[in-house]
């Protein structure tokens, strides 16, 4: 039987390295690698060597993932709930992107400048709005998890990124592959794939 948890995790991460798949799936690295190799044997994922290489889905893998998550949603019988949660997510999404942009760029005297993070009051304001948005995102995550338990991992990953940022590791807002923005975007991708919607 196809290993949907690992296949789908990689589908939403896109194209990435082993450690990130393990981290996102909540599995050990050796276990993840062995599962990826099984998926590769079935022709669903492939590993590209080289400096910019990594693990990704084949076209057959994308088709299999789409089929399996659709079947999973049908079995759960919660399409209506997931759709409603997706609509709530779409209300939050532009605000999240605004905040990521405000984190990177800051208009000063009408000139959009790279935020050099020397104005701690400005950074604190942006971070406070991330925290406020995250409170509202928690409701969406809870509704999603009730509808389909595998969505539960996003809440923990979003919280972990925000906690690191609040503890002073501010790159975890929008600048790392495990940042709030990165996890958020995977959640966006997951919702689109789960509901069978094009981007």
């Amino acid at each position, binding site marked *: 039987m196809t290993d949907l948890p690992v296949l789908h995790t990689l589908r*939403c*991460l*896109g*194209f*990435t390295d082993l450690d990130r798949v393990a981290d996102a799936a909540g599995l050990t690295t050796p276990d993840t690698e062995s599962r990826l190799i099984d998926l590769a044997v079935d022709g669903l994922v492939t590993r*590209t060597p*080289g*400096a*910019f*290489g*990594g693990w*990704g889905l084949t076209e057959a893998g994308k088709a299999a993932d789409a089929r399996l998550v659709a079947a999973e949603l049908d079995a759960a019988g919660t399409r209506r709930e997931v759709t409603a949660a997706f609509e709530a997510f779409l209300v*939050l999404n*532009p*605000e999240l*992107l*605004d*905040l*990521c*942009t*405000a984190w*990177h*760029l800051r*208009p*000063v*005297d*009408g*000139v*959009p*400048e*790279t935020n050099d993070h020397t104005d701690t009051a*400005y950074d604190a*304001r*942006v971070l*406070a*709005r991330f925290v*406020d*948005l995250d409170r*509202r995102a928690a409701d969406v995550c809870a509704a999603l998890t009730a509808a389909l338990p595998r969505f539960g991992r996003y809440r923990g990953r979003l919280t972990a990124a925000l906690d690191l940022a609040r503890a002073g590791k501010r790159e975890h807002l*929008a*600048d*790392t*592959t495990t*940042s709030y*923005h*990165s996890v958020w*975007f*995977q959640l966006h*991708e997951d919702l689109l794939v789960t509901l069978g919607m094009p*981007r």
Partner: protein
Amino acid sequence: MTYVHRLSPALPVDAGVLGGKGSGLVTLMRLGLPVPAGFVVSTAACRDFLRDGRLPGGLAVELAAAVRDLETATGRTFGGADRPLRVSVRSGAAVSMPGMMNTFLDVGGPSAQTAADRLRAAVEAVFASWHTPRATSYREVHDVPHDLGTAVVVQEMVFGDRDEHSGSGVAFSRDPGTGVKAPYGDVLFGHRGDDVVSGRVATRPIEALADREPAVWAALLDGLDRAERHYRDVCHVEFTVESGRLWFLQVRPGGLAGRAAVRVAVDLADEGIIDRATAVRRVSARQIRAARVPRIRTGTPVLARGVGASPGVATGRIAVTADQAARMAAAGPVILVRPHTSPLDMHGLAAAAGIVTTIGGPTSHAAVVARSMGRPAVVGATALTVDPATGRVHTPDGSFAEGTVFTIDGTGGEVVAGPAETTTDDAGPHLSRLLGWATPGG
């Protein structure tokens, strides 16, 4: 009337009451420029709404009276059967909050009562959108007071999608990338204004109006010139052409940065529109620093211009899929050109020296990721189309195979074919003169 002000040249220009959009429209009317008839619901009504949680008493009566005036002015009936009056209902705060609040186009209805109800509901929805979490976040981050409220501009609809002599566009009175004195902007024939700013439909350069609608082009140039002389600054307008007739929908002065801001200040002084002391005052130290950022040299032929989303200049061979970008990057710098990006493109984004998307705006995934990696990026380069099947990038005038060298400028949003000369000194002669004016005795 207490809350509702009919748009007219006699109305006092007060952005605190009318909002930026409303006061700009009054200014345009005073300049004798064509503005669709309408009225403004003041920010005071919004503040009352925010305080009480409902539209102020008496507003319904004022709206009804304003609609009657508008019916008289237009010769049409709101909620009528034959060619009825339809209106746009747009937000407009004293401080620009682009895209944060609601706008409703083509509001009307099958009966006078329905149309009036829909208008009232639209005004209320615009007011309510002041307090959406997204708008609240915007004000928090950009230090805008929460108690200003927004005005609502209600105008007779003009339809850019009416016929072949219709369209919508945006224009600067001078090139916002370079400051060169020439109108710059986009026009979209047969479409309404929301399509122009969506970044989803390929627009034409504003000069396309000159051939297709010469009378409109002349009227636009005249309008831009009058607005510039009034504001004594570069101006940006939004307009709609309906059946060969030009209508201005918005005007905003200023907004240029870096070398363009320097050049405009110096040129305006040379043209006698401002004095030298004003020119010096207008250009901040930050603008001067921004003027020295590396840029593609002014005058280089531009293939497409999108929005600069992550600053810097990058040159490389184009790839149209993330897989190709990752493969080609081993052999040298790559410019990844995509319609938009998603996590599936992460390896391509990581491998690319520069990123171009044909749709999407400055807060898109591609833009955020590019900035986080410090890579130059241009987004919304709508003149380009990407064909992953054939591995080609098309422009209205040509086609480029994967592997062709492009240079992109993530400050100004330019995409050019081939390697391009970059410079930190395009503002040089203008900047020297400006600095000379700043020196006592200079």
